[in-house]
């Protein structure tokens, strides 16, 4: 056992050094924002499939309007922006267990990017396209079209409040937020009014999660 004790301090020092090397300083939203605010061609392959399919889905005025367009003729004219919203989510279980520590650590990349779809000149945001990353196959695929009201709200906030904003969703409690980083602080803007915060208010994430944590603990497993 003697040689083992002799090695121990060096092994511990090496482990600390390796851990520090692998873990970025802000091991939360920033690395994902750095990568996906300007996504690569592998993402746009999936986007292309989605945008080619879109006009086929807008086959009548009613459904075109449901997805946010004026009529079906806007389908072939629609384009996506190059800068999607990175989607982060916060789990119900994480909120239930949250002890008030770093709120940024609650955000998990949802493996989804939300691209605004716009039409015309002047440019008007109409709808959105969601692409999803599949970790197992290392491939991006188109997932959804629509969510017109959500994307218009997000784009409006990105234009007026924070150009590097992103979407934070809490699916278990049906909440969506426009999020952005102010220095190291995570700020959330509720997209819907609830008992605690009015839509559009800028709130530090810790305050939001504190309120949601209480609500999460009352969830009983039935649909909400």
């Amino acid at each position, binding site marked *: 056992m003697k040689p083992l004790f002799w090695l121990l301090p060096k092994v511990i020092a090496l482990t600390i050094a390796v851990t520090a090397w*692998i873990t970025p300083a802000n091991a939360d939203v920033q690395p994902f924002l750095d990568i996906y605010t300007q*996504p*690569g061609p*592998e993402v746009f392959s999936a986007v292309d499939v989605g945008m080619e399919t879109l006009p*086929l*889905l807008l086959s009548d005025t009613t459904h075109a309007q449901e997805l946010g367009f004026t009529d079906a003729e806007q389908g072939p004219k629609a384009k996506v922006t190059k800068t999607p919203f990175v989607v982060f989510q916060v789990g119900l279980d994480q909120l239930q267990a949250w002890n008030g520590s770093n709120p940024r650590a609650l955000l998990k990349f949802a493996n989804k990017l939300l691209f605004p779809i716009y039409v015309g000149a002047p440019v008007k945001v109409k709808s959105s396209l969601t692409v999803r990353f599949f*970790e197992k196959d290392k491939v991006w695929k188109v997932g959804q079209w629509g969510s017109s009201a*959500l994307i218009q709200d997000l784009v409006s906030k990105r234009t007026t409040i924070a150009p590097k904003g992103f979407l934070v969703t809490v699916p*278990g409690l049906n909440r969506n937020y426009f999020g952005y980083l102010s220095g190291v602080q995570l700020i959330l803007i509720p997209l819907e009014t609830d008992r605690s915060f009015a839509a559009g208010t800028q709130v530090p994430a810790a305050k939001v999660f504190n309120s949601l944590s209480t609500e999460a603990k009352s969830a009983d497993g039935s649909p909400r």
Partner: protein
Amino acid sequence: MLKRTVAHSVMFLLLLMFSACVEIDVSIPSKGPGVPRAAETPPIPNLVHPRPLSHGMPALSSIPGKTPISLDAFKKMQTKRLQTGGGAACNPDDKKSIDKVGPALQQTASWCWAASSKIVMESHNIPIDDQCNIVMKVLGEQLCCVKVINKDLIIPENTNCQRGGWPYKVFDMYAFDYENVDSPLDWDALTKEICLNNPFIYVEKRSDGSKHTVIVKGYHNVGPTASNPHRQKVVEVYDPQSKNFQDFTYEEFIGDPNGDPNGQYSYSHFVDYAQIRPLP
């Protein structure tokens, strides 16, 4: 002795390195530099229903309401209904949409079950109470309709009103029939259900332990396109949480297979409520 010492040291070093890798989880979401994910907390046990069976499907006894039926049994019922003139002939390779669905928002963050049930029941041209009245009747609470902020939002005076619930309880309350199908409708069953003019509700079960209801109102089978040589099956859904209509790829609609939400989508179908119709 020296060999043994070196071997011990190397093994110890490897063990420490391995444990460090496990702790920080450096799974890479895309081409590019490795980015760590936030540590995941294990899902909490389901507080209301028994845990799912080991192969991932929900235990049949855990699906509340009417006795669940298999997809095969459900498809036989559908065929019979179509044969007896319950709906138009279907073309699963085309498209069909039911326009009477939505757009109404769930009026609190917890009322997806009341909102979804109301929307689907009203698509059969039967007026149904407001969401807050449905909630009061089903949950046995008072003061759920106070205070109304606007037509899309209520902040109930009684906080007990703001709870989750199950669509089947609403169907029972308002004399509607339904079937609990224990797995997601396949393309054949989905398209037939829409052709029968029956929008349906599925309960999405997520990996974090939460559940949510979403309405299916149509389908498209389109393509191919220049970038995609295959036809694309697409499902029209309406989510009362966001007041947003969405088209999902069929794969996105299904999510993780076999009722186990811990795969790449992080959600699966807990149950599909189909053939929601007024009792004769």
